């Protein structure tokens, strides 16, 4: 009967924006500990960017600086807007959705309530109510398990389901930048693979820009367009994900995983 109205507005824009997220000379840390010592990188609009590196290299700190959880020096702009110096709630209002390490779901709330909290910035406007309802469906489409458990308390979900819920909640914000911190942490390999496939699908279908921090380099490189390898708070290596993956020797040195061995296996 009616015309399909779900056409993506993003697709119409088309124009590449290589500096959609632009990090310039970023310094950040906790108290005396200076973790990031001058970081520069850019993420193009619609790109999945993987940040890799050994423990303590500053991967998580980078994400936290982007979303306002830790203070930083330097410059971080999203579509031209300065993000540094903002609180997490302000960053969220600017379209930055961060899924923290260890999930960060609201365990007392039901699954559906968790998702609604994610949309609370929008659902206040009456006109947005229908859009929020449609988004719920969209999230349940990506994560059918969440639909089955929509009335269940988030605290009773399995680890994988909680991670899905955390990502789903972040997507309810309709973010322009999605930050994922160690999404594979503590999850079974099969669950992790499923999760990354969904992130890839979200990126392809909605052109959401994604920055993902991962210990599991192989997985992250599979869905990323570009990758940056950190070492001791500095950029050690940057390039297209495929190239980083091919460059087995460099990856071995910096990532501490044998990428080349896996490739043949």
């Amino acid at each position, binding site marked *: 009967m009616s015309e399909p109205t779900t056409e993506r507005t993003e697709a119409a824009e088309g124009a590449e924006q290589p500096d959609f997220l632009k990090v310039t000379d970023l310094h950040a840390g906790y108290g005396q500990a200076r973790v990031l010592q001058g970081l520069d990188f850019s993420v193009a609009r619609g790109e999945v960017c993987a940040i890799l590196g050994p423990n303590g290299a500053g991967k998580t700190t980078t994400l936290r600086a982007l979303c306002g959880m830790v203070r930083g020096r330097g410059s971080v702009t999203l579509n031209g807007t300065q993000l540094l110096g903002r609180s997490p709630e302000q960053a*969220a209002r600017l379209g930055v959705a961060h899924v923290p390490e260890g999930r960060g779901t*609201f365990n007392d*709330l039901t699954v559906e309530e968790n998702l609604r909290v994610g949309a609370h910035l929008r659902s206040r406007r009456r006109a947005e109510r229908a859009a929020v309802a449609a988004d719920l469906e969209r999230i349940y489409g990506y994560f059918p398990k969440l639909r089955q458990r929509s009335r269940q308390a988030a*605290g009773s979900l399995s680890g994988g389901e909680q991670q899905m819920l955390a990502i789903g909640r972040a997507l309810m914000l309709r973010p322009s930048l999605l930050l994922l911190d160690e999404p594979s942490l503590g999850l079974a390999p099969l669950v992790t693979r499923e999760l990354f496939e969904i992130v890839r699908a979200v990126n392809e279908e909605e052109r959401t820009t994604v920055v993902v921090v991962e210990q599991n380099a192989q997985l992250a490189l599979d869905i990323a367009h570009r990758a940056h390898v950190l070492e001791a708070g500095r950029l050690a290596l940057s390039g297209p994900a495929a190239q980083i993956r091919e460059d087995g020797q460099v990856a071995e040195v910096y990532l501490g995983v044998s990428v080349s061995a896996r490739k043949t296996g």
Partner: protein
Amino acid sequence: MTELLQQVVEGLGSGAVYASLALALVLIYRFTGIVNFAQGELAMLSTYVAWQLVASGMPFWLALPVTLAVSFAGGMLVERIVIRPVQGAPELTVVIVTVGLFIFVNALAGLIWSFTVKDFPQPFPDGGLDLAGVRVDWSTLGIIGVVAVVMGLLYLLFQHTPIGLVMRAAACNPASARLSGIRVNRVLMLGWGLAATVGAVSGVLVAPLLFLEPNMMGGVLIYAFAAATLGGFDSPVGAVVGGLFVGVAETLTGAYVDVIGADLKVGVPLVIILAVLLVRPQGLFGRAAVERA
């Protein structure tokens, strides 16, 4: 049997008052992890506001909503001015701040209204119902009714409104709430405002039974602590059940245990607190501090 039921009814009446102050304690604990020792004093201050309004000629049932509104604003103000600066400080610091607030509010009320007792008007008519020999005063019914309405409104607020959802999210996981764009500080202010309002209800209800003076809520606060401990400090339902239980336990032991009598029944809440902490520290409805990894 009739005699026993009579005592139970009386106990439920005072228990409802304890329940509402306990609910105020639980609200603040849920949102901030703080045990607010000044909760009773804030309620006492609210009661003086109501008394002042009635004394200046306002009808009680108009003075009540005005008082609740003033209390709401006052609670938010206290959070902003007194509590916010010590946010994130060690627990003991915050506890001392609430104890300081207790002393300050108590002295402030004495300064403004003096320490001489005042008569607070009884808002409910005299007389009551006779249910199979058990006499239920209108005032007892009124107290239970008002507290029930307050609980119902809180339930609706938290479970069925967007702002209630946001408040529960902020209480459950402040860091993730901020990442979802929730201004957690504002939620904390709202929480203190709500708690002060609920506390004000308990003060206004209990004042006609006691005499209005700055130390009026001291005893009630101890019963409320027992109620919250029994029900579980993080459970609103527990606060209500605990409050009613403590009220009934207090009247029954006062009436039937000769050794205790009217003089020693203040010891009942302390025994309850002690017993709960020994046997089940998280209370009846509270959750022990374990989480699924």
